[in-house]
């Protein structure tokens, strides 16, 4: 069986790749496109370490086939900063020590961005449920939740 040719957009860049029908988007990102920021923690959608945003919807790259990316827009952690400017969430995570080992961090940041893009004024409960699909074993989530709430508050302040 010949491979499938897929034309898509990854982090704003027109991108083409070849994949097998059963290759997941995560396989393609990591092995074909060498974008290893999305991590495979479980391969079953239970940890969120491979979170990406596809056409403005948060998803796990392990729960989507590479072939399904045809004509879509994919955002990975590698596309979150603008040039040499970190996204406010990225900056805040460093400042507030919202990571320890850092392996869940790319997924958490993508999920947090997806959350704030839709809900700029979340309650703590909304942040907690918004990030419930992202397992973190190091931090107990406390500093992650605080960092996301803090960025939301900063952005509201700037918007005023």
């Amino acid at each position, binding site marked *: 069986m010949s491979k499938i040719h897929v034309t898509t957009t990854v982090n704003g860049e027109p991108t083409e790749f070849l994949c097998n029908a059963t290759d997941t988007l995560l396989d393609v990102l990591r092995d074909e496109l060498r974008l*290893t920021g*999305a991590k495979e923690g479980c391969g*079953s959608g239970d940890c969120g370490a491979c979170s990406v945003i596809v056409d403005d919807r948060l998803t796990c790259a392990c729960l989507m086939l590479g072939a399904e990316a045809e004509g879509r827009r994919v955002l990975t952690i590698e596309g979150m900063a603008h040039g040499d400017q970190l996204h406010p969430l990225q900056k805040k995570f460093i*400042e507030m020590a919202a990571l320890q*080992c850092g*392996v869940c961090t790319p997924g958490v940041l993508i999920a947090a961005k997806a959350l704030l893009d839709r809900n700029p004024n979340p309650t703590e409960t909304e942040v907690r449920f918004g990030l419930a699909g992202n*397992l973190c*074993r190091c931090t*107990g989530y406390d500093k992650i939740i605080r960092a996301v709430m803090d960025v939301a508050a900063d952005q509201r302040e700037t918007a005023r």
Partner: protein
Amino acid sequence: MSAQRYKWVGTRQNRPDGADKVTGRARFAADFNLPGELVGKVLRSPHAHANIRSIDTTAAARLPGVKAIVTGADFPEQPDQLLPAGEMQVNLRDVTRNIMAKEKALYEGHAVAAVAATTAAVAAEALSLIKVDYEILPHVIDVREAMKDNAPVLHAHMRTEGVKPAPDKPSNIAKRLEFAKGDADAGFAQAEVVIEREFTTEPVHQGYIEPHAALASASEDGQVQLWTTTQGHFQVRGFCCRLLDLETAQLRVTPSEIGGGFGGKTVVYLEPLAIRLSQRAGRPVKMVMSREEVMRASGPTSGGHVKVKLGARKDGSIVAADVTVALQAGAFAGSPVGPSCMCSLACYDIDNIRVVGFDVVSNRPKVAAYRAPGAPISAWAVESVVDMLAQELGIDPIDLRLKNAAKQGTKTHYGASFGVIGLVETLEAAKNSPHYRAPVKPGHARGVAAGFWFNVGADSSAAAQVGEDGTVTIISGNPDIGGSRASLALMAAEELGIDYNKVRPIVADTASIGFNFVTGGSRVTFATGLAVINATRDAISQLKARAAKIWEVDVEGVVWEEGEARPSSTNVGKFEPLSLAKLAASASRTGGPINGHAQLNAQGAGPGFGVHIVDLKVDMDTGIVTIDRYTAVQDVGTAIHPSYVEGQLQGGAVQGIGWALNEEYIYDKQGRLQNPGFLDYRMPVASDLPMIETVLVEVPNPTHPYGVRGVGEVPIIPPMAAIGSAIARATGVRMLDLPMSPPRLSAAIDAATPAMAAE
């Protein structure tokens, strides 16, 4: 928080690896690739206990794309000899069998063969073509079942150590330990209240999000390179060299960024297999475990059975204690039963103590270290009974602990006496915390528990290399999991008197720095920190010598202050201070490069104590527990980077909350794990939790220049008993078995209140 004593130590600086980790640039083990690499996969036993009669790999070997196959026969037999591994001692004879079964498969998931092939699909197909002839044997999973006389025996050669006369029959009990102080029986005779209960815990997994992964490249000349995710690349080197007959100088191990370990990455699984496959295939081999493999084949911590009997006077003084701890070691001997026994009663000054421990094998994956190995299991039981005493005697649970608290000079049941410790200060801080002073909300209940861990020191090496512009690279050899690079850089900046951002800490491979013991036991900030301080001081003494040369004065006439060499007094002469940058720039003319080194076996890691407070409510209809408020109080010695210290307390507490409420290994009748994934191995998610408040108590460790105590282990110890005690106070039901999951708690509530069950 202590007043500002230092310029950098105690401040919250950005971590040096922060930008890489928030952008996806940081490379974890599975992110490494080499040209021409093959994919390695492991065939695992579907049986909990079986003799391996034969393994036929001929069909698999014929499959196009298969480049190498190894089985137990490819790894040399090893002596019955102990080596330290993170926390526990491991037996080489067992280690070689754990990485790859020889005569027997001892648990479901036990590796029996491994393949290297051109693609993952070919490797998977090759595994399906390997024929293993198993003779299925009766198996045993539960620790108490495994201790019975008629239990299936895992190891025919195993005789229980520590009993007299030495047994002549094989047993699953590898070892019996006993600790005693005073006379327990006499102590109970003085007691006015005696409470005795039996508790159990299930094995729980460390739950690191990054699965084990390794990339090996063996050359034809015998040299090997290995990239892996580990808490100790020097241990990996040591293990692999022993298991594969390599010389240490031939094997260079580079640690990747590590995606969590918690003790579980102090041993080897894939690494020796990847090297052997690479040697056989002549190409690099990359191996990555699936989550299912992580759950089935890598070490959880022990499940246990703990019997506790405490006797007290009516005034609350505990006069006698009797504790028996039986821990599952998994398929090979070596559970953390020693530390479990020693920690069980370490928070208390009790005159009459007996503690007995058993190390028991069963058909489960071999346990690995997990945060304060063994301590949470015995503490769950002891702290629960202490709370029952408090209830029985009508004494506040913190006051009861204060009355019996271990202090400097208290002699423990394992023989040692405590030096400077901060348990009393920690209990008092808990009592004065905003949380404990706040009233318990209606419908909620509060629980409290304490915990103790020794903390360790051990071998560390470090170097401080001064660059031509006066910036400094700090080289250490401990994988940084929780921000230790930041702590090391803070201490180096403090010593050097230069800006934190002028110090760059890196973690070097095994060929680039001297030996370092594992990142574990909460030792890095303490022991490797000491090595970094000494390496930095070595560099400073060289800097002072260069200044002395330049000034043509005795070196005693030079002091190092605020990042520059200064004359120690006006008697020395009037010289412009020489900054680090200036001295660095002229280094070549004054004697060559300036590099500091230090290596040591750090002794005197200060013991740590913690007290946790939890408020929760119980849905009486469903048994669901909701944590409403949580506070972790701990003596941390000195918090070098307070944010990461808080992070240790918060993360440890939440792992304990998971252990308390939902995490467990569930086996079917065939001894097969039923929940080998994050869906049904239920670790806490963000929405399960409140903020985790922290109170950092600082009773400096007198054996460290900045007073550091290890902080990472203690916080996983108190949560189970704190939550169990709050549940007892909320429902009137004292839970004895972990986890206190909704079905179990509901059943216990219904059993205690038959009227509700009938409803």
